[in-house]
């Protein structure tokens, strides 16, 4: 009897193998755990929605997309194994993810070493791609590139002459913004930076920022710049208002999202930041994708699921146009083809029209100004001027 089953199984195998050869395997690394778990939650939702939509339309060149997902449980310790498993055991064509810049610092070099294309959707630390070319890309704009032109315009419009910056010295992105980017920007546009030599700092997760805010108050600026992650920035804003300060609040693109808005409540009304993701994009194609995404997730799209959605679109585009064979013996060549296709790729997706720079792997997106008005984010595109 067992012999019968064994033979039957063997007979089925070629069929299984054939079916698998028809699947385009894309690796996905995110995590729903840890302080940035929402990025991963949305990331998974975004990639799944895109894969389902593409497969519903027949897949790519007749082949269906298959996502091979791993959750590294907010532990960098699992990443070396996961990346290598995706690359050499699961044999994926490319990888999307991970959640954060810190994790990308581990994932990108390994992917680069193993020659697998990797695309980050929520990795915003400056300079992270330069050592990991040619295989690493990202479709999210680093904070500094996004913010400069926008805020330069804002300080002119609002006639802001003096600013004070409060920065998180424990978060690399915020620290970079507060120590280099913001002082540099204000120098350039001729705004007096009251915290240039005597910085006002805090650490991520510090429960109380009352002391820092009191210090800001004593400096009497026209505007306060929040170089912090969204949750901490909201907390600072609340304390600022509580201590009776009425200054204009400014921030980088990192603040846009539900967390700053909801946590901040009344305190963040009137705050202005840069933005890169436009949920109310009137462009019909983007709108259609956003609707499709919202239908699958049941929630209004945010940056993280929209970019993840577009990452899959980009991969599908790269596979289709790049002439990928999807035959196991040509895996290395297929990966090269995807990498070459990603260089300079142009995508019109849920996050609008964007493209990847062939040299740096960074994304080019239109710039936006974001204002919190009436308890909502209001985005307006600005004309991009070279920084």
């Amino acid at each position, binding site marked *: 009897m067992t012999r019968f089953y064994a033979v039957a199984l063997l007979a089925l195998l070629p069929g299984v193998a054939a079916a698998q050869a028809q699947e385009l395997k894309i690796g996905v690394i995110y995590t729903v*755990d*840890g*302080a*940035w*778990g*929402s990025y991963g939650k949305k990331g998974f939702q975004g990639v799944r929605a895109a894969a389902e939509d593409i497969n519903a339309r027949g897949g790519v060149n007749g082949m269906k997309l298959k996502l091979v997902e791993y959750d590294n449980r907010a532990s960098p310790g699992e990443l070396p194994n996961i990346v290598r498993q995706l690359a050499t055991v699961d044999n994926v064509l490319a990888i999307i993810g991970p959640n954060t810049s810190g994790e990308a610092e581990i994932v990108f070099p390994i992917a680069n070493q193993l020659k697998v294309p990797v695309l980050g959707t929520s990795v915003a630390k400056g300079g992270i791609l330069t050592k990991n070319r040619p295989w690493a890309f990202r479709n999210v704009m680093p904070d500094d590139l996004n913010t400069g032109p926008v805020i330069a315009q804002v300080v002119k419009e609002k006639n802001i002459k003096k600013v004070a910056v409060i920065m998180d*010295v424990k978060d690399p992105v915020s620290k970079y913004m507060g120590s280099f980017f913001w002082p540099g920007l204000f120098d350039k546009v001729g705004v007096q930076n009251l915290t240039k030599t005597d*910085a006002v*700092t*805090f*650490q991520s*997760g*510090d*429960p*109380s920022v*009352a*002391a*820092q805010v*009191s*210090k800001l*108050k*004593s400096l009497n600026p026209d505007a306060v710049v929040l170089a912090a992650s*969204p*949750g*901490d920035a*909201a*907390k600072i804003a*609340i*304390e600022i*208002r*509580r*201590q*009776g300060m009425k200054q204009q609040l400014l921030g980088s693109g990192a603040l846009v999202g*539900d*967390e700053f808005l*909801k*946590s*901040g*409540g*009344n305190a963040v009304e009137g705050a202005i930041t840069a933005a890169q993701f436009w949920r109310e994009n009137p462009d019909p194609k983007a709108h259609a994708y956003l609707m499709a995404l919202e239908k699958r997730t049941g929630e209004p799209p945010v940056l993280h699921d929209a970019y993840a959605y577009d990452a899959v679109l980009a991969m599908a585009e790269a596979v289709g146009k790049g002439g990928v064979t999807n035959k196991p013996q040509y895996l290395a060549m297929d990966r090269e083809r995807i990498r070459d296709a990603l260089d300079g790729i142009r995508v019109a997706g849920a996050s609008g029209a964007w493209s990847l720079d062939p040299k740096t792997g960074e994304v080019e997106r239109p710039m936006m100004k974001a204002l919190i008005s009436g308890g909502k984010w209001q985005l307006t595109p600005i004309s991009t001027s070279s920084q």
Partner: protein
Amino acid sequence: MDLLLQQLYNGVLIGSTYALVALGFTLVLGTLDLLNFAHGETIMFSAYAGLLALLASGGSLPLAMAIAVATGALLGTAVYLGSFRFVSKKYWTAPALSTVGIALILQTGATRLWGTEQRAVPDPLGDANLQLGPISVGLSHLVILGVTVVLMLGLHLLLKRTRLGKAMRAVAENHVTAALLGVPVERTIALTFLISGILAGAAGALTSLVYHTITPFIGLNILLKGMTGMVIGGLGNVYGAMFGGVLVGMLEVLAVGYLSSSYQDVLVFAALIAVLMFKPAGFFGIQVRDRA
């Protein structure tokens, strides 16, 4: 001068919350030599419970406090059962490590239940602010300070004037002698955990009001501050914990206000080690048994 006064006030406010944390921590340490690593997460969990009660009741502060305190008491009892009652004392690390496990359970549970993002804690007394000269005082601050003082007073009276308090002090001196003298040791220990949990619950509710937002990750940070306050004041010493907590709050605020927060951690932990090395009994003297 204005700024200094405001900063001193900030320090006292934050310090009083640290003092509450240190108190709960030191009670268990004093009676049982147990480092309860789940104390911070108990505070965090109670804070969330209080927040939910606050939101559900449309801003009722008393209800929020009650729910937070009840949650703390419950979790304190859970820690007693899971890390003490059923754990063999033969391996002296076992209870402390078990509290680490409980801390992990509480933190993961919180992220599953309430997400990882910051949650705003609405001020139930509105944004009302009093201007006492140069110092800006929130109305809710008065409540926080008031409740903290009441709790400290209550604890003092409990320890000095009640039978339970006497029993707790006896057990802290020496379990065996206390038992010989007829003190119901096991029950006293259980009640100590319960009271520690109540203090944790109160600390959770009050700290979330002072800090305006909470996340599932505040537990460790708060615990560290409380631990430092406890060491400065003297391990196992209740009055030391009150003083130590406030001192840590003041030091922190002044360091941040006049130096840089980058060095905040280094200073705090260097102070911790320095006190351990040169004045291990803290500023108020030690009351905990020394283990061989």
